[in-house]
């Protein structure tokens, strides 16, 4: 082998680096893939055993309204309805507020203001959910009790807590989306005689619509999966809610309260796994919705 042959084709620091890098990244992605697969398989086998082993009808499970696992009655509809109810309400109320705050920060207030607000908002995103639950317990519930009577625990309290929890996330994401709108759109619109409001609703919002929707779905996905804060304020009665002030239970709150009180391998325990499976499926749907929205934006 000639010197040049060795120099140009032999192993070197560069090729070794490339090889090591590829091995490390492949290994990491394999670990993540296995993790996801394990969760899916485990949750599916546990979640489906209620229907397979104990012969509970799936339709009865998703449409039944009586949840008394100890008596062999597994109607999960109240929890499904409550989970969706509080998530939708929190999301719908949070969207306009988050949008307004984000517009104020990016389009209206001076840039110096953004330098202060953005870190504050990001700080709020990082607050543990138990703190939000605690605030709900000590501040919101007494207020609701005073205004509407009753115990104060219930869907409305959960909605308010979730709303407080997801607004910072949604504001933060919406700000990023609005900042990504090219400055040239604003300039051109202004140059054509548009007022700031006209520029916002004719140019900025349409080009940011996908991102704003993603922010909303992201916030709602967070609300849907939140267990602790909700459990602290919702009253935990696995019944079909009749009003915003009635105690109820979400999929997650039933899981956290129930998982310690049932014995592994019993039907009552497997029923909880079935609820977890419903949660997982819903999260996947949220995820998919987010991807669809973003694909439309690109197309």
């Amino acid at each position: 082998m000639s010197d040049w042959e060795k120099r140009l084709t032999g192993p070197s620091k560069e090729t070794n680096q490339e090889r090591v890098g590829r091995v490390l990244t492949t290994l990491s992605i394999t670990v993540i893939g296995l993790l996801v697969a394990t969760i899916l398989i485990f949750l599916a086998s546990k979640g489906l055993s209620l229907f397979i082993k104990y012969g509970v009808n799936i339709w009865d499970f998703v449409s039944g309204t009586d949840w008394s696992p100890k008596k062999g009655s597994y109607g999960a509809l109240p929890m499904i309805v409550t989970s969706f109810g509080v998530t939708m309400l929190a999301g719908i109320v949070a969207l306009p507020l988050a949008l307004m705050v984000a517009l104020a920060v990016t389009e209206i207030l001076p840039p110096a203001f953004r330098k202060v607000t953005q870190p504050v908002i990001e700080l709020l995103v990082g607050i543990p959910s138990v703190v939000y639950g605690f605030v709900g317990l000590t501040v919101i519930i007494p207020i609701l009790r005073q205004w509407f009577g009753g115990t104060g625990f219930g869907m409305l309290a959960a909605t308010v807590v979730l709303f407080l929890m997801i607004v910072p996330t949604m504001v933060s994401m919406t700000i990023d989306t609005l900042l990504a709108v090219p400055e040239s759109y604003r300039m051109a619109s202004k140059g054509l005689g548009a007022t700031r409001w006209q520029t916002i609703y004719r140019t900025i919002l349409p080009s940011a619509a996908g991102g704003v929707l993603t922010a909303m779905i992201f916030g709602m996905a967070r609300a849907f999966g939140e267990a602790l804060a909700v459990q602290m304020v919702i009253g935990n009665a696995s019944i079909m809610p009749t009003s915003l002030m009635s105690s109820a239970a979400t999929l997650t709150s039933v899981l956290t309260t129930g998982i310690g009180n049932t014995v592994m391998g019993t039907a009552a325990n497997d029923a909880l796994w079935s609820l977890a499976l419903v949660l997982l499926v819903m999260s996947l749907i949220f995820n998919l919705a987010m991807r669809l929205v973003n694909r439309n934006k690109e197309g």
Partner: protein
Amino acid sequence: MEDNIALELKDVSVAYGAEPTVRNVSMKFKKNQISALIGASGSGKSTLLRSINRMNDGLATVTGQILFHDVDINRPKVNVYKVRQEIGMVFQQPTPFPMSIYENVIYGLRLTGEKDRRVLDQRVEESLKHAALWDEVKDRLKASALSLSGGQQQRLCIARTLATKPEIILMDEPTSALDPISTTQIEATMMELKKDYTIIIVTHNMQQASRASDWTAFMHQGNLIEFNQTTEIFMNPHEQATNDYLNGKFG
């Protein structure tokens, strides 16, 4: 104001901070003529241009008078949105909105609340013809403006500015991001447009000023050094600084 004057600047100064970027500029722009502002980077020519239709509002302090139809438009009371429809602007980079070609052209009309389809259709055709883009896009008006080439996008931006029927068009280095062929097309378009509009153009490109403009103003370090007929400026500059700049001694 004399009949053949479209716009007059009186003692206009512009400051971003304490130090003015443009100092006491007074000049008159003739109707249906192309006037070019030339000068080195930082000479204040773009700053001055942007002050004319109040694009510097909130960014810089503009003092002095800007007379348009005998009205000083550099006053707080003036409706800046109306001003910008009368004095349109074309930017350095093509800035089409992410909408259809059609929607881009009528953007300014939509702002005024124009809804009549016939008016809109007619204005789209008229504006695109004026900007020499009609033949290339008439069959795909519903296509995204972003699908056009850079030169086409810039002509679309010109059409969009024309659609609000301005009297004056300000162009801020409109060809500096374009290839030579597109540049030639834009210059030809400008020649056509001056029949109906007054054009003020900022350019880095001295050949462009000498080819396309009737009047040339040379700015240096925020001051207006010389403003005269283009042939006069290029053949027989009266000031030493103008001569030095044209001969590439600085820039």
